[in-house]
């Protein structure tokens, strides 16, 4: 039993770390301003190391912001500023 508990605690700790990657997990992120495909440094903050988009849970974006992010990343990839993979 003891072992099981510690495993749960471990999982929770992992989850906390997971969320910390980008910051706040809930609510509108007003501090982020406009999302533009040219601002690669900003976009990379919301992508995994493989270049995949992070989920809304991790970006803390509203649905609208997340759509803008999606669009921006796709434009950015198209013009060769960001990688499709890796």
């Amino acid at each position, binding site marked *: 039993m003891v072992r099981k508990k510690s495993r749960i605690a471990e999982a929770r700790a992992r989850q906390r770390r997971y969320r910390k990657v980008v910051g706040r997990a809930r609510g509108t992120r007003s501090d982020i301003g406009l999302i533009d495909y040219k601002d690669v440094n*900003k976009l990379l903050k919301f992508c995994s190391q493989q270049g995949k988009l992070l989920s809304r849970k991790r970006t803390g974006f509203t649905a609208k912001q997340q759509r803008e992010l999606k669009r921006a990343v796709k434009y950015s990839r198209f013009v060769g500023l960001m990688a*499709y993979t890796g």
Partner: protein
Amino acid sequence: MNQPYEVMFVVYNKDGQKNHGYLEEHLRGLLARIDANVVRINRWDERQLAYEIKGQKEGIFYLAYFEADGEKIAQLRRDSGLSEYVLRLLVLRLDRIPTEEEVRAQSGAIEEEPPVESTEVRSVLAVDQALEAKEE
């Protein structure tokens, strides 16, 4: 009806000239062919491409804002596709043409965490300017 557009050209220095002015001339030519009213066109950046495009690893990015008839955009795409210099282009329709300050703020020129990165950028800029001065 004329609509405002933003276009990002990815070009490469095919002729290997030091002066990239001819590339801008070429792009202006492409825009002139569709009777576009060019508000602004400038070299946005020159950087490594995230992946090879038409065998090129490096690209020069030109950002242009213009007003044109929407039906002519297809022609711009076609002309650019035939162009030897243009690797790729992204055309976006805008609500209005942003001012220069807005563009600068958008494209991340103003960094959120200035200390480390901005000094790097500045030093790179200084090197660029020094090189340009030498060339002149």
